[in-house]
């Protein structure tokens, strides 16, 4: 129902007074309309509840008998009081206001939003794994340890590295881990280096991690082929450089052609190469970071290895290293013993823990499952198809969108709406919003920062040629509309068929309301 005639909130009184319904909001389902869903707080009616607990036969001591009164709260923390029925209806309705991979294509560049096999969900919810306490002694967790050891081995094989840690909970945590490994390495050699080099096309987590790692960022530019500018790199290198962070293919979707030269130059000054593995999907089974000369690699399992993104997490960001760095890895690490059993072991010069337990274990189990389902051949097929899809899509867009670095791409392509903007006023953001109502998630926009009006499109290998064609057609349609009607037309009005229309981001920051209690 439209918000003006919402009978739930401003009901017309019937012949009898509605005395009973003070407090609380109606809970019904405009699955079909564009109505606002009340918050759980608005649905709440004190006295309602859903919870129930096991019968225990334990004496029912009063709180005062258990804890000194000075610690006890006078009034309980106020939580929403709802029935199980309203709880279920509320969150089910929220899912009907949410796009997801399972609903359709999600060509967000740099995010690798591929299909997540359902069997991985079942693996991660099996009691034999999901209910294991993290402090249970190794004798009680041999199955888990074997999974972790095998996963480490597989990730080393895939990256061409010697050893790995599974503790980092996401890519950024992996980056920081990698930088601390770099620091430990240099310190072990009595060297105090202060700078880390990052290309200007890098993902924001890279520079942020460098700062947290206690280093200064030195940015190097991009050459006209979309790669690291070798001259400025050489100029930036020096004995105070601890390392360089690269993603390859880079965020333009381009393979860093000069990687051998880069590696040589970096190693020559005694610095290390860090590989940001967010884009590993492109090169699975084709080329390995270790073979390119990288010393430290983090992987985003929630991208390449299809562990779902959960609306923003959880992920997992294991870090693999070359032999000379293995002793510095965080610990404890899962280890295969000579007798075939498994245990925890501490690396000789470990930088220490970087997770409260062993990492996002159930995410790791999903990745293990995914790798098993693929094998070497399957993973190479993933990369081949991801790259095929990206190139084919790029060719479909040629002539309508700008191709700022017009070379064969890897798993994603960055196109630009700059000319369209100039000609019609159509901005990348408008394209994104119009795509939403055409039934697709939008590509990543305005990243990488070095491309104006960037649209970063990563179709992934699990989208069919038909879906690619439809996506291309939709993008071309948006451009055509703008040419015909000007940007003030369809795209500027978009989206109109989504649960809400274009949101006012500035207002959210200006008048911060970040909890229900801050609502005025």
């Amino acid at each position, binding site marked *: 129902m439209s918000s003006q005639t919402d009978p739930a909130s401003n009901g017309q009184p019937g012949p009898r007074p509605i005395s009973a319904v003070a407090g609380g909001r109606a809970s019904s389902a405009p699955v079909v309309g564009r109505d606002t869903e009340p*918050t759980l*707080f608005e649905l709440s009616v004190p006295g309602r*509840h*859903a919870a129930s*607990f*096991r019968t225990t036969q334990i004496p029912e001591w009063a709180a005062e008998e258990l*804890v000194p009164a000075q610690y006890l709260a006078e009034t*309980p923390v*106020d*939580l*929403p009081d709802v029935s199980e029925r309203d*709880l279920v209806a*509320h*969150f089910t309705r929220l899912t009907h206001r949410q796009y*997801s991979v*399972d609903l359709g294509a999600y060509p967000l560049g740099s995010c690798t*939003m591929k299909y997540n*096999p359902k069997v991985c969900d079942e693996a991660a919810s099996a009691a*034999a794994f*999901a*209910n*294991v*306490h993290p*402090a249970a002694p190794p004798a009680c967790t041999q199955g888990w340890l074997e999974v972790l050891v095998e996963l480490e081995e597989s990730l080393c094989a895939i990256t061409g590295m010697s050893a790995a840690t599974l503790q980092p*909970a996401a890519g*950024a945590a992996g980056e920081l881990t990698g930088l*601390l490994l770099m620091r430990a390495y240099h310190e072990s050699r009595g060297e105090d280096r202060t700078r880390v080099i990052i290309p200007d096309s890098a993902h*924001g987590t890279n520079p942020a991690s460098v700062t947290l790692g206690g280093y200064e960022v030195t940015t190097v530019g991009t050459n006209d082929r979309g790669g690291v500018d070798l001259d400025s790199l050489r100029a930036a290198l020096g004995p105070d450089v601890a390392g360089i962070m690269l993603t390859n293919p880079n965020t333009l979707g381009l393979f860093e052609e000069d990687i*051998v030269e880069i590696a040589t130059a970096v190693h020559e000054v005694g610095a290390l190469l860090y590989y940001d593995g967010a884009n590993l999907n492109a090169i699975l089974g084709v080329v390995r970071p270790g073979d*390119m000369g990288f010393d430290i690699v983090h992987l985003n399992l929630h991208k390449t290895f299809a562990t779902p993104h*959960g*609306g*923003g*997490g*959880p*992920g997992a960001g294991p870090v693999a290293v070359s032999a000379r760095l293995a002793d510095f890895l*965080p610990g404890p690490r899962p280890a295969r013993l000579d007798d075939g059993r498994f245990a925890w072991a501490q690396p000789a010069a470990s930088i220490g823990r970087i*997770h409260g*337990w062993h990492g996002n274990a159930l995410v790791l189990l999903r990745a293990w*499952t995914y*790798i098993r389902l*693929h094998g*070497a051949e399957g993973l*190479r*097929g993933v990369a081949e198809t991801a790259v*095929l899809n990206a190139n*084919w899509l790029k060719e479909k867009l040629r002539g309508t969108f700008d191709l700022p670095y017009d070379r064969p791409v890897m798993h994603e392509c960055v196109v630009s709406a700059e000319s369209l903007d100039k000609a019609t006023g159509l901005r990348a953001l408008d394209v994104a919003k119009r795509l939403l109502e055409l039934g697709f*998630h*939008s590509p990543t926009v305005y990243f990488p920062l070095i491309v104006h009006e960037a649209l970063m499109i990563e179709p992934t*290998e699990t989208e069919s040629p038909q879906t690619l064609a439809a996506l291309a057609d939709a993008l071309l349609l948006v451009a055509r509309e703008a040419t015909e009607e000007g940007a003030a037309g369809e795209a500027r009005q978009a989206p109109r068929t989504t649960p*809400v229309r274009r*949101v*006012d*981001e500035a*207002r*959210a*920051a200006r008048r911060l*309301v*970040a*909890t229900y209690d801050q609502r005025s």
Partner: protein
Amino acid sequence: MTAPFVPHTDAEVAAMLGDLGLESLDELFATIPAALRLAGGLDLPPQQSEADVVDRLVDLGEHNRPAGRCAGGLVCFAGAGAYDHEVPAAVRSLASRSEFVTAYTPYQAEVAQGVLQALFEYQTMIARLAGLEIANGSLYDGAASLVEGVNLAVAATGDRRVLCSAGVNPRWRAVLATFSKGSGHDVVTLPLRDGVTDWSAAVARPASAGAVVVGFPNYLGCIEDLAAARDLADRTGARLVVCADPIASGLLRTPGSLGADVVVGEGQPLGIALGYGGPYLGLFACRAADVRRLPGRLVGETVDADGKLAYVTTLRAREQDIRREKASSNVCTNQTLMAVTAAIQLGWLGTSGLREIALRSARAARYAHDSLAAIDGVEPLSPHPYLREFALRLPVDAEVAIERLVDEGYLAGVAVRDGFAGTDAEGCLLVAATERRTRGEIDGFAASLEKAIR
């Protein structure tokens, strides 16, 4: 079955290659220097069908001893930051809806109102549990939240000295130590006495500090005196960072109401599976005044083009994708699905349910405490009040007792070891009880322990 989830038929691949003027898939990789390209295939276990992988998982699972009433299951008295609380079917069912599971970070708010609203509700509930105004949309786990909390405190005060109680979870302290190597924090550990922080030495020699950090309850289960912690923070000009158990807020006064500036914590007890330690949920709350230093994602309210209420991630200028090396944190992917799960679980619990779970856990802990302490040779470590966890000194090493009790079907607890070397707590058994533990289970546990330590 070359790549089992790739839809393309051979004919389609051939046609697409044709469109690109290519003859083989290999040519797609022409820009990669030939010398680098892998000659053979990756050295991996062979590709397997879904059924085969499931078979292997069943085999592996048989080598685990999970908590609960399943094959090989153990009655769980282990805690130490991960607790065996009730998770009802409704929460599992809702949290596994694929729209929540397979969405990305809600960058396009118009098609992400589901996740955004759930996070807005989550933020509200966590802020209430913390007793502070602002909570973020999650961090990796309790340890990560502690690090971020200390970072905020240090940034806000400009002081790198961190006074950290030895009662804070030793694994979290270890993580703080690791990351301090990068951030340059100077972490000073405040010792315990009888299981609670001994504030006297620090108070006696007050220097300036950026953060005072304390557990509530602490790792050994004891309820700390937050007034003393607040006092130290005031004397040193530090922010008070409290590592709080969210379940405690069901019974105890909130850390915010007791003076905390930043509340961090592990959200696992809020509906999240033990899961061998992850994915868990880093709770983070702070005062409104500190919101611009908040790490990670924050969801705020706004309106759409029609003036309709809508939710969106906000104050993005703190974040790494915009602020880059000057960001308040490097966090990007966080634990949103766990935050959504916690919101659902807290909705299931409601006001009375959270209190119930805290009270029932405390009762079970008391019953277990008294039953176990009655065993000859078993002594409680601390005389101080506790909530649902306590440490016991046994006549044998805790590891030995744990090993023996596994054979009886009990996970007896966690050995106090790392982070407590040389203290009186070293070698103790840390025992936790939740509302799921029954009298029968505790009686059985006590009887088995008595046998095991004889």
